[in-house]
């Protein structure tokens, strides 16, 4: 891995919860992201996986400065964003762009594709206004769409094409980091493959850092160099994609991997399955100790006592489980 372009150190995003009318009183704190440290390098794809509510989208929003971090540092190209001036923040926002899950909801239905792509360029003055049309046409070609489609509106496109437009919009400001939040989960398999190919190609060609959030582990394994698994606001396992998904070490990752249905009917019926009971606990009242222990098939008394730290194993991956040596 090359030098990290983005580095997170112990980032926390907490939301206070208030209850009651009139004079609302504090009812607790949702620890959506609770001490996440990770890095992403140029030309690297970091996969981020976990169940709904584990904080992966909040982490994305925190990185992009949509919500303020409660604690911790986010360093982009050597600059700490928590201490950045508003001018520096504007520049940081240009350098980090997002692709959302639902291409039907994330494009303005009243703007033509040209207006959608030109607007960020004009706002951030990335080039002279006269050069914008040529830049926009170039962007369209980059994402595999014909420039003659620029006068059309989002409803005239299919789901896959809209997601290409959303990718083009993210690229309009020549960013260095792209955060894609479930970019293919609303798409059919055949279209999903096209978007995955496009994203890998762009990462290679433009030396982008891509944070790829998804709940589909086979997709994440395919596209990512490294994978981080989140549970209830914390990273529980982080390592090379093939290691984490083919030989998971944390019991939660093992359960996630075991939940993926296999394509081979005989293997699918024969294999042992770890079916986790219930839903993830509420982040408002996280369990004591390891947050996973109430659902963990190998939990012991000691798992209730202390929050396990992320510890590095011999193969370089990090796992937050005190029993990792025994299981």
């Amino acid at each position, binding site marked *: 891995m090359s030098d990290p372009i983005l580095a997170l150190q112990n980032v926390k995003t907490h939301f206070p919860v208030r209850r009651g009318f009139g004079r609302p009183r504090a009812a607790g704190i949702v620890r959506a992201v609770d001490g996440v440290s990770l890095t992403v390098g140029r030309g690297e794809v970091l996969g981020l996986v976990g*169940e*709904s509510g584990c904080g992966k989208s909040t982490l994305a929003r925190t990185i992009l400065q949509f919500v303020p971090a409660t604690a911790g540092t986010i360093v982009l190209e050597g600059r700490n964003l928590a201490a950045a001036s508003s001018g520096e923040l504007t520049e940081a926002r240009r350098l980090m762009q997002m692709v959302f899950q639902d291409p039907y909801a994330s494009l303005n239905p009243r703007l033509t594709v040209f207006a959608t792509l030109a607007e960020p360029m004009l706002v951030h003055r990335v080039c002279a206004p006269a050069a914008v049309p040529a830049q926009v046409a170039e962007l369209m070609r980059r994402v595999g769409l014909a420039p003659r489609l620029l006068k059309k509106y989002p409803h005239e496109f*299919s*789901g896959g094409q809209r997601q290409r437009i959303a990718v083009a919009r993210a690229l309009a400001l020549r960013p260095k980091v792209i955060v894609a939040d479930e970019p293919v989960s609303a798409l*059919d*398999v*055949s279209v*999903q*493959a*096209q978007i*995955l*190919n496009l994203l*890998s190609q762009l990462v290679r060609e433009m030396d982008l850092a891509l944070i790829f959030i998804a*709940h*589909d*582990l*086979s*997709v994440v*394994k*395919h*596209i990512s160099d490294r994978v981080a698994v989140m549970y209830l606001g914390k990273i529980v396992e982080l390592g090379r*994609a*093939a290691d984490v998904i083919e030989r998971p070490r944390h019991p939660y990752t093992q*359960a*996630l991997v*075991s*939940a*993926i*249905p*296999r*394509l*081979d*009917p*005989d293997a*699918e*019926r024969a294999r042992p*399955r770890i*079916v*986790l*009971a*219930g*839903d993830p606990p509420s982040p408002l009242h996280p369990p004591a100790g390891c947050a996973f222990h109430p659902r963990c098939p190998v939990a012991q008394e000691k798992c209730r006592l202390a929050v396990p730290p992320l510890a590095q194993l011999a193969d370089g991956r990090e796992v937050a489980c005190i029993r990792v040596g025994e299981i």
Partner: protein
Amino acid sequence: MPLLEVNGLRTFFHTRDGIHRAVDGVSFTVERGGTLGIVGESGSGKSVTCYSLMGLVPQPPGRIESGSAVFDGVDLLHCPPRTARSIYGKRIAMIFQDPMTSLNPYLRIGDQLIEPLLIHEKTSKAAARERGRAMLEAVGIPDAEARMKRYPHEFSGGMRQRVMIAMALITRPELLIADEPTTALDVTVQAQILELIRRFQRELGMAVIFITHDLAVVSGLCDRVLVMCAGRVVEAADVRVIFQQPRHPYTRALQRAIPATQPQGAELYTIPGMPPDLSQPLPGCPFAPRCEYAVDRCRREDPTLGEVAPDQSSACLRAQAGEI
């Protein structure tokens, strides 16, 4: 005799832009206790097929143009509405993709859960509530008694899908139609829901039609698989055969596009082009414009589903000729 026999089903939508041939001549059978998977991309007609069986196609603009669907001797498409109503929700139940929009947000879970019992069985409300509570426990909802008084928004997605399943199974149906029941859920919850469906299928001996776009889900659950494309069935076979020896180029293309079948980091196979516009007449095979095996004949002749191996049918002219 099969439990359900669908023959030549055609459901068209008559819109301002023309006639949209959503389901165009679909035939299949479901045996008692069997599991049929229907797979295909969005717009391939898999949901409309099942909506047609359940009388859920909005008419107009939809219209069932022809075909029959014989369930245990009764043609659901042509029987008196009263007869059909005594079957829907009692002997055939359905669960949907989005458990948030398919539960009534104004009704307590308990009240909607026992509605099928109050309608279809002569039972007292107290007895129905007791069966409802037992059913909630059976689908794995803890503290069922208290949960009966809660509203849908107080449940998580996985819990709501469990409630939906409890509601569908409370009348002990002979056929369950599940329309992408796990698509909106996490993999861990998906595994729980699939396990639940498998268990009830064993216990009640019911048949299941499972609609999904995810081939991997089908592999663990179904005995038989129909692959649909552009409103037609393009391949029908035993689940193992579909995965090991698919004989329609579309089935092969779908499998090759799945990341899990490809080496990590390699470029994924993509199906070129887009699904056809169903409001335009299609000469020849609907997949021909996107098919790498297509020859001139494929663009002229309309293929029909024909047997290419024992118990395996493919609607591909070249497969039928033994060329692929």
